[in-house]
């Protein structure tokens, strides 16, 4: 099908394009930007007046809860959330039940996700069987089944010898290793940043050193193993400094930050708001400000939603008993725009953090509007403001610390492989 997207402002950070232009889609690919290709007859037309036309968003962390947690969310509900959020590619961590540690499970997920309205799904395979940290998974087989990287979701490999071998094995095939940096001993029992707020509220703390100790371990091992390392959901200024120093020392490391840690801090726990129960915990104002600066200057490669649908039973509990996590797929774009406006980061540069940069981390030819590339496109109105409500959220997870807030930007259309996956209800 041939589609024209008219009258929009096209921003394609990867190609340095930011101009008023029409965009042409044919056979699921970008056919042209600017001038209509010869002989192009549009079968469908989208009026993007007042809107920005950009690459579909690439989210480095979205839990779809399949298989195993279908009562919390299903592929259908979360894919509807992705499309409504302008997200066209997403990486999902392996902490499903069972974990993504066998090729059959990955093939099943990829197969289930192969519908035209669904975003492209890039599973992160389990680095160790059952995420148990003892035995390597069949990484090469898993990669053939569709895994693009290997990790442990929010768990760790305690045994450093196993961790080094897992990294070496992944490096053998050139597979990136994605790891969260949190020492489980130092974080044991903790539910909030070990600081002023936790001290006052009497909440068991997770100290920053839990992140830096774990980072020191994985950075050293990645260097020795020659593995490409991606650090997921970094939370502290000290941790970010270590990633920065490692990169300067020539270690191949990238990292991402979640929308929550970009905007919120320990004070947002308020009076024990379970919505602010997140993993890793929300840290100090100074940490948050360092993450914001890091995302602007490129020390942090990408912004992710850390989408984790949690049902009401999981959240309607005392803070320390509440399940960690928040819904995020539909908030990634608005929260990127909010950061861009507040931190005075040019829109094209901010957009790169949710499009071309995460695509680069994933090693994908996505997140761009280059001619010939897959027509994964997001059309949004940057001036619209929408209030986050349970009713509006398409995700089955209705819990987020941003509930009730008015955020900038509203997605008008989402195209996946040139197929209109989302258009606003009339």
């Amino acid at each position: 099908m041939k589609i024209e997207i008219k009258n929009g402002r096209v921003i394609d950070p990867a190609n340095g394009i930011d101009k008023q232009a029409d965009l042409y889609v044919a056979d699921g690919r970008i056919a042209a930007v600017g001038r209509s290709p010869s002989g192009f007859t549009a079968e469908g037309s989208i009026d993007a007046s007042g809107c920005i036309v950009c690459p579909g968003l690439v989210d480095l962390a979205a839990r779809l809860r399949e298989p195993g947690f279908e009562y919390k969310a299903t592929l259908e509900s979360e894919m509807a959330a992705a499309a409504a959020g302008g997200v066209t590619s997403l990486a999902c961590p392996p902490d499903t039940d069972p974990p993504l540690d066998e090729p059959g499970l990955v093939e099943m997920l990829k197969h289930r996700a192969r519908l035209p309205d669904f975003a492209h799904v890039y599973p992160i395979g389990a680095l160790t069987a059952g995420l148990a940290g003892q035995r390597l998974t069949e990484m090469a087989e898993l990669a053939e089944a569709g895994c693009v990287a290997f990790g442990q979701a929010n768990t760790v490999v305690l045994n450093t010898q196993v961790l080094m071998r897992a990294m070496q094995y992944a490096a053998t095939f050139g597979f990136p290793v994605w790891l969260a940096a949190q020492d489980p001993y130092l974080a044991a029992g903790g539910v909030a940043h070990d600081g002023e707020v936790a001290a006052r509220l009497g909440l068991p703390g997770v100290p920053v050193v839990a992140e830096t100790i774990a980072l020191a371990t994985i950075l050293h091992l990645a260097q020795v193993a020659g593995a490409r390392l991606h650090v997921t959901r970094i939370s502290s200024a000290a941790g970010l400094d270590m990633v920065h120093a490692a990169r300067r020392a020539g270690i191949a490391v990238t990292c991402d930050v979640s929308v929550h840690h970009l905007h919120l801090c320990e004070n947002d726990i308020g009076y024990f708001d379970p919505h602010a129960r997140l993993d890793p915990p929300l840290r100090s104002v100074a940490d948050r400000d360092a993450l914001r600066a890091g995302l602007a200057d490129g020390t942090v490669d990408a912004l992710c939603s850390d989408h984790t649908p949690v049902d009401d039973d999981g959240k309607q509990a005392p803070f320390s008993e509440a399940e960690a996590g928040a819904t995020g797929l539909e908030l990634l774009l608005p929260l990127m725009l909010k950061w861009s406006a507040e931190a005075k980061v040019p829109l094209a540069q901010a957009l790169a953090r949710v499009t071309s940069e995460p695509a680069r981390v994933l090693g994908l030819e996505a997140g761009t509007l280059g001619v010939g590339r897959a027509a994964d496109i997001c059309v949004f109105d940057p001036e619209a403001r929408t209030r986050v409500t349970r009713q509006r959220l398409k995700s089955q997870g209705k819990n987020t610390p941003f509930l009730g807030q008015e955020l900038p930007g509203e997605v008008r259309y989402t195209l996946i492989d040139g197929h209109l996956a989302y258009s606003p209800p009339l």
Partner: protein
Amino acid sequence: MNHDNPQLNKNGELQHLLTLDGLPREIIMSILDNAAPFTEVAEREVKKVPLLRGKSVFNLFFENSTRTRTTFEIAAKRLSADVINLNINTSSTAKGETLLDTVDNLAAMQADMFVVRHASSGAPYLIAQHLRNIGADHIRVVNAGDGRHAHPTQGLLDMYTIRHYKKDFTGLTCAIVGDVLHSRVARSQIHALKTLGVPDIRVVGPKTLLPTGVEHMGVRVFHDMREGLRGADVVMMLRLQNERMNGALLPSPQEYFKYYGLTPDKLELAKPNAIVMHPGPMNRGVEIDSAVADGGQAVILPQVTFGIAVRMAVMSMLGAGN
């Protein structure tokens, strides 16, 4: 986000008693003032006043506590309320009922007040917010201790005791000694002492038992107990839980007693008329020497007596609002 403190209503009046953090000085003082006449009720032949007659007070204890539950029960009964005791850790939650299911059920039984003890910090907030969400605002919540967070009636009875013996807060040096990290009592004491204008609040303990950033709560930190007690008017000892005596927090109760136990010779460093307090139950020979616990400076039993009067004051103030 839950950024409104649910314990005060729109007019700034006490709706629930959840914490002493941010509780205005006038409210604290009025609770202490209201408590004074209730100490006399206990001395009457008929130890009852009819202030809460016809009201139902539910003691919701999700964590065991004989002592605190008993003092709330006595306080409510002396106010002529009907008291229902529920030890929930042994009943419904074991059957998988959530905290809020339990609350819904009890609200449907026309409760007027919940006295809540829970092992998780913030649980009474969840209950208070839930009551608002289901339109049951008339049910008042009294926090009888939540996790490490707060034990406001204990903090208030401690303030009552200090005022009883010292009259004025504004020139005092108060030392809180022991396991501050895990103590809801210490947090409530610190907030109340600050609000009441105590200029020198000290916390004393090994680094393993003090929270990160405790100095932001407006206290001075001492690791040497002798230095921490020097010149103190009030020494407030904290209970050390059994499970914390041998492990990664402390090597042994013997070593703890040697360095942080209150003995007569360490007490000599405080002012001669210093009072010694303890929230109970005491571990003699661990945090406090029997010679001090039973000595002339200890006001530990008067604390218990005042505790009933203070709880009567809190419950009558909340109940009168219905």
